[in-house]
């Protein structure tokens, strides 16, 4: 799966928890919570949605690696390629 495709999955999931958001205007390196009005319930639904679509399991301890669009693409890309250690976000 390409980064582009992962990005689309992530944006799709974001669109479902924040339907009013302008997904084209999402800044990839800024955290979601700073750009969108989402709470922990929304975030949980977002993670569940991504897990279901990409057929991966994401442990709670890794939530902090999913804070922005870039972080998500990096994390999920590595997970899908089965990389052992996933780099810490900047």
């Amino acid at each position, binding site marked *: 799966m390409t980064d582009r495709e992962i990005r689309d999955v992530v944006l799709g999931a974001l669109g479902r928890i*924040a*339907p*009013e958001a302008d997904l084209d205007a999402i800044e990839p390196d800024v955290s979601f919570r700073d750009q969108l*009005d989402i*709470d*922990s*319930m929304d975030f*949980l*639904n977002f*993670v*569940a949605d991504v*897990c279901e679509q990409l057929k991966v*399991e*994401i*442990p*709670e301890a890794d939530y902090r690696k999913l804070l922005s669009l870039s972080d998500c693409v990096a994390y999920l890309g590595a997970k899908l390629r089965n990389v052992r250690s996933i780099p810490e976000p900047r």
Partner: protein
Amino acid sequence: MAEFRMPSLGADMEAATLVEWLVKPGDEVKRGDIVAVVETDKGAIEVETFEGGVVEALLVPEGTKAPVDAVLATFRDTGAPAAGAASRAGRQQAPPEKPVAVPSRPVRRPAPAGPVGERGRVRVSPIARKLAEELGVDLTQVKGTGPGGAISRADIEKTAQAVRKAPAAAPAVPPAPDRSAAMRQAIATAMARSKREIPHYYLETPIDLKRALAWLEETNLSRPVTERLLYAVLLLKAVALAVREVPEMNGFWIDGAFQPGAAVHIGVAISLRQGGLVAPAIHDVAAKSLEALMQELRDLVARARSGRLRSSEVSDPTITVTNLGEQGVQTAFGIIYPPQVALVGFGKISERPWAVDGLLGVRPILTATLAADHRASDGHRGGLFLAAIDRLLQEPEKL
């Protein structure tokens, strides 16, 4: 013979519009089934019937505005013959009670898409209707792909997409202003009345959540994403159990006296995207497991935000909880929703220096507040209530 009446769906509701019948004469209904959709200031509410039986007659056409308690339909007993047009001599059953209600049984939803309505109207589910309004989609332009041409949410989204892609089309339509304004007005009326009539007192206490959060982290390790618990359900359960120790926090102040709630139905304050607030009930919180509460909370939040709440959820809360920690607020002092007598507020969890066994440590501290009706309780009792919530949260495994 039973009557289905317009329910009271809020402290200040006087009338509402019946927008859709979900049953027709001849259908058999059980108590708790959803029989109609009613439009209120707080959005579309799916109304459950208190009575069971066979639908005899729908007395009010779709689109009619009717006052609270107006008879909207009649049911006959299952097995009884259909009545003639003339009404019977006297009512055989008392009208449904309000507002201290026995909790309804789990609702049976009607089949997702039914045949075309009586007058040839195409069926539109409440969620699709609401979405159409939010996206500014004209329902008459939507091609329904469900049975009988029923319009689903997906149909609305597809139409909205097509409209968006049209070049030089009209700019994106914001959420229907009428709905927001009406909800704002309903909240304004209720809150103004609350502050006018209820002598509020306020108490605040910090709660050390270290044990609760550690327990949560551990239990979530072995849970798949869809079964993980949020700390919010620990808070809800603790509030429900604390009511057992201080029951005067749970119930209503009506006609100069306190009426305790039969069970603890916690109204959960849910903010709607882009403004608005509803606080529908999770029923019987004290008796439910954390897993069940989590599923119900998830479902409730989703339906509150898509405008598919049920009448029992809107009319049954016996106490309300507001959790404003997500937005970084330290402390939440709320306004009691009449005729309830208490509101528990939770702020954010923040790491704070804390004295632990005579030494300085750092703990995740949550500030809990209580807004209570001084007619129903005194500060001492309110203090005991908050202390009970604190104590219960120190033993999360027992929640």
